[in-house]
């Protein structure tokens, strides 16, 4: 079997704090496979390292398993009946795929933002409070502080501070998406997974969210799925290209963004990036 480990030839080398030269890795993924009910193989043999406090972009044509990949990283695959994950995923020292870990704790450490903004049908404040309740922040004052803090962090505070108790669903799409990001970072995650966070937004909102991602990079490890190659190139440090090959989603190219965009080794990836395929 041909291994797909690229760039970090031996994933275990890139352990946290091992070398000051090499960037620390927040997550290591080894030989990850995912089979949905009915035997459809969404992912096969995916291995990579996600560098800490950097943006890793995931690109590839539709249906190649990008969303599925993100869902493996925080075990949202558990919610899909009949799906089966193989391989190993480590978040620092935690074995993510282990059956004994507390997935709710994991999901607080690895947050996720969806393609379509999904604020709950509650007020803006309640959307964040509901998330906080999970971490047992019960003190009113503390809650209010965190709400303000995270809303400032996503640049939403000035826009909504007068209507915190208004319905979250009356916000614009871009504001909703930033609210979702605020909600996720209220839990102080280490890693944030973003599944095409800008694709349902207009160009202006999209740019605002993109700037936000770039700012968040200082404090969080980000994994961003995007169909916008220019965006991937602008914001990411590393880029992974997924491709459907032999009826399974595979990682065909992975490395520093500049290298992937200018000198991809895989011919399919190279032609995809130049807009000739996919």
């Amino acid at each position, binding site marked *: 079997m041909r291994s797909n480990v690229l760039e970090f030839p031996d994933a275990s080398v890139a352990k946290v704090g091992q070398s000051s030269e090499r960037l620390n890795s927040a997550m290591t993924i080894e030989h990850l496979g995912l089979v949905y009910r009915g035997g459809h193989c969404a992912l096969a043999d995916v291995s990579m390292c996600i560098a800490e406090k950097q943006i890793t972009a995931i690109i590839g044509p539709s249906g190649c398993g990008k969303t599925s990949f993100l869902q493996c990283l*925080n075990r*949202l695959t558990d*919610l899909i*009946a009949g799906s089966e994950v193989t391989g190993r995923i480590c978040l620092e020292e935690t074995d993510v795929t282990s059956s004994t870990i507390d997935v*709710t*704790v*994991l*999901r*607080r450490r690895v*947050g*996720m933002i*969806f393609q*379509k903004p*999904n604020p*709950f*049908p509650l007020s803006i404040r309640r959307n964040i409070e*509901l*998330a906080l309740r*999970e971490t047992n922040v019960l003190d009113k004052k503390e809650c209010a502080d965190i709400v303000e803090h995270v809303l400032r962090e996503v640049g939403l505070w000035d826009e909504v501070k007068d209507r915190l108790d208004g*319905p979250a*669903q*009356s916000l614009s799409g871009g504001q909703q998406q930033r609210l*979702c990001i605020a*909600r*996720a970072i209220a*839990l102080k995650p280490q890693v944030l997974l973003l599944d095409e966070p800008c694709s349902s937004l207009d160009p202006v909102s999209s740019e605002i969210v993109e700037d936000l991602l770039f700012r968040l990079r200082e404090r969080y490890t980000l994994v961003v799925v995007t169909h916008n190659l220019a965006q991937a190139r602008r914001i990411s440090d590393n880029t992974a290209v997924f491709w459907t090959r032999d009826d399974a989603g595979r990682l065909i190219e992975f490395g520093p963004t500049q290298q992937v965009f200018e000198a991809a080794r895989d011919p399919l990836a190279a032609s995809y990036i130049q807009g000739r395929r996919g």
Partner: protein
Amino acid sequence: MSKGWDPGLVLSWTVAVIVAGAFCWLLGDVFWNGLGRVNWQFLTEAPRDAGRSGGIGPIIVSTMLILLVCMAASLPLGVGAAIYLSEFTDSEVGFGRMIRRSLEVLSGVPSIVFGLFGSAFFCIYLGLGFSILAGGLTLACMVLPILIRATEEGFRSVPSEYRLGGAALGMSRTRRLLYLSFPAALPSVVVGFVLGLGRAIAETAALIFTSGYVDRMPSSLFDSGRALSIHIFDTSMNVSGGEAQAYGTAVVLVFTLLSINLAASWITDRWLYRESIGS
């Protein structure tokens, strides 16, 4: 476009007029004959002379108690079952499908069969005798399928984004259910509840063998109590000269039924609509 008679149109109009006409005739008949009877005394006094005169006070109380028992038993069971079916089982295979099929069959069973079952199980086997408790529990068995269906539908139609979003925030299944699914499904629970209530209040056959005929004011749930529908049945069929009282009672029953149905449609329109536009 031809200006001639479109047979489809004529047919559908005829049907509509017949249905609406039948409904109006029925309502008109009941109200015409009964409305004059209904006053405060009628609503509060006890029936006299086997129901030929007097009021229906104890009967209203018994009916309410029967409904109370019915809803107290069926609501938690029904909502629990609906949550179980929608959140924890796959409706197409195995156990979930079995329950679903059974419910479909149950909701088609004639009420007299429920009455016989209730009589055999609650009255005789559990020793409750003719009592409000037995009647209410029998009705509960009858409305459960309706309640479960409506509620389950509500839970299934909660957008999966909420569930996924909640899970991604590290909310446990119980909390997602409590804070996200349940509030979103609540209007359907209410609608199911009201539908069940409507079915229960109109029921006669299931109550004849279970809660019985006694028209005195009940002093506990273990007393027999006569429901409105049974009072109508009895005064119009078994008591000569009781028709007028039957009509009066029918007015009360129909009025309650109409109010319940109006409430249901008001809730569906207002609440579900607001829910769906998400404001």
